[in-house]
């Protein structure tokens, strides 16, 4: 119920954003959508499978680099990329991210709890340092610049609509996955892995599949990032970047499908507006996060849900 209302509100709001005059709102909304998709993919592992992927930015980054590398290859002669080449490079991110997730997931799916979290963090940092130090191929800490998309996509509003369409379709597919038998198998092995195994679910295979799916969707988000910010850099794979979906999911509420997107609206929106007004934005954002952690455990959506339940007299 909360999820439906939140989803409808989100879609309506996102459709209305281009009505706001000026490019700022559209650019911020694009960022919210991309990072929101990233967080949604993280919550597939966290909310539905009960594990924490601390190296999730690796797949976001692999997606971004996959797109950027193909983009750079096409750009070569200095002329812009054509629409077909742009489409091809956008498609390159997903398989790279999924392949990365397959390797990382193969090892991570044997572990649970803090060891799962730390192994994924370790793999994330490993991939980060490889990208960071491989100057010849990835450009090292300079990253890859000048990812100028074809003319139509250069307009922020057009790119926003493109992002909105991609994120909407991807979210719908993710939503469908969480409602599928596979999605329910995930919930079961989250709550009781041993029982799931007794019923005949291949726990490791399920975890691995889910990890790959989550990595692939993080890769889609990453692919959208390059042409949006016109550049990619190793920061996109670091542990700070991995923290972002964790924060968003917790702020919005991991128990709801739309939670991470709500969290992205709060976190990215806050970031964008506070950075504009004060140089001491880390202080301001840090205090807001502190208050949220201390007083809104379970995230905004579950707080809203509780409020609504008490108001209608049903209680919980």
């Amino acid at each position, binding site marked *: 119920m909360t999820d439906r209302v939140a989803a409808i509100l989100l879609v309506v709001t996102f459709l209305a954003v281009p009505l706001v005059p000026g490019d700022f709102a559209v650019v911020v909304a694009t960022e919210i959508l991309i990072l929101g998709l990233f967080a949604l993919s993280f919550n597939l592992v966290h909310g539905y499978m009960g594990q924490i992927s601390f190296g999730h930015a690796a797949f976001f980054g692999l997606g971004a680099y996959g797109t950027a590398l193909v983009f750079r290859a096409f750009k070569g002669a200095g002329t812009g990329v054509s629409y077909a080449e742009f489409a091809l490079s956008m498609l390159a991110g997903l398989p790279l991210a999924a392949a990365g997730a397959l390797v990382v997931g193969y090892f991570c799916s044997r*572990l649970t709890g803090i060891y799962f979290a730390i192994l994924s963090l370790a793999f994330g940092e*490993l991939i980060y*340092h490889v990208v960071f*130090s491989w100057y010849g191929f990835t450009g*090292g800490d300079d990253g890859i610049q000048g990812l100028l998309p074809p003319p139509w996509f250069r307009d922020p509003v057009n790119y926003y609509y493109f992002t909105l369409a991609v994120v909407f379709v991807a979210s719908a597919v993710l939503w469908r996955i969480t409602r599928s038998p596979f999605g329910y198998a995930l919930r079961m092995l989250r709550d009781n892995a041993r029982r799931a195994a007794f019923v005949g679910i291949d726990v490791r295979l399920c975890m691995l599949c889910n990890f790959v799916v989550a990595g692939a969707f993080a890769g889609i988000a990453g692919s959208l990032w390059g042409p949006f910010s016109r550049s990619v850099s190793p920061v996109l794979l670091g542990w700070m970047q991995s923290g972002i979906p964790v924060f968003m999911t917790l702020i919005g509420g991991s128990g709801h499908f739309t939670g991470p997107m709500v969290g992205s609206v709060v976190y990215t929106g806050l970031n964008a507006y506070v950075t504009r007004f004060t140089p*001491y934005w880390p*202080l301001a954002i840090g205090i807001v996060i502190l208050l949220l*952690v201390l007083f809104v*455990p379970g995230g905004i959506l579950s707080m809203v849900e509780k409020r609504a339940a008490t108001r209608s007299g049903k209680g919980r």
Partner: protein
Amino acid sequence: MDLSALALQLLSGLSRAMMLFLLASGLSLTFGVMNILNFAHATLWLLGGYLCFSVFQWLTQAGGLGSWALVPAIATSMAAMFAIGWALERFLIRRMYGRELPEQLLLTFALILVIGDLIKIIWGTQNRRLPVVIEPIEMLDSFVNPYYFVIIAAGCAVAAGLWAFLHRSRYGRIVRAAVYSRDMVSALGIRIPTIYAGVFALGVAIAALSAGLFLPVMSIGLGMDMQIIVQCFAVVVIGGFGSILGTFVASLIVGIVYAFTILIWPEGALVVIFLILVAVLIVRPWGLFGSEQRT
């Protein structure tokens, strides 16, 4: 490459290992005892370093202590960080004990932002280093800064002290007992909250020692905490959570491997560290010296 160059590299690796150990031991203690992963640990380390810097500056301006002002400066910053650590545990960390790992991450990340910005407000964005001049001594056909031996000695002393504290003293035994059965220790009339606050504050104070000890040979600056904290995690995980001996051995491994890889393959030094970490986690997730029961 001749022998003396290798020996020098070993020396720098050992001193790096000591810095990692001093930082990671606090991290390992707080995780082992309270099950809290403190991502802000390195930021507190940074704060301790800046405090030490200011006290040192004030002391050298006030009295003619010269380079020896480093000792009271480190002591003051350790005392101050102990108090700050105590207050943090009392008002914030304590609320996180029942919470899940991601929530701890979120809280300590907020602390990173807040403390980092406070440092920026108070000390600005400049990197800091102490102007302590130490005459290099001649050995192994080259010149060596004898201060490295001070660092290595201090690191080993803290390691031995911590081990003796945990295994030989009454309070250390209480701390170790609290790891295994919090309820039983509490039922025996021991105040668990005080023990937890003390352990957290101790970890933070040791971090301040690490920062102060390194200020004469290394400059510290904003943003360093982010890089160093992941390496500390690597050390803690390789050694096994909650094991002081494990943390010590792991920091030796990481420090020395880092020092030698940087000679052969400068860009890849950290890649190798994380390869080791991944390998340890795959083969022995609970670390070299940890026990298998903890999950």
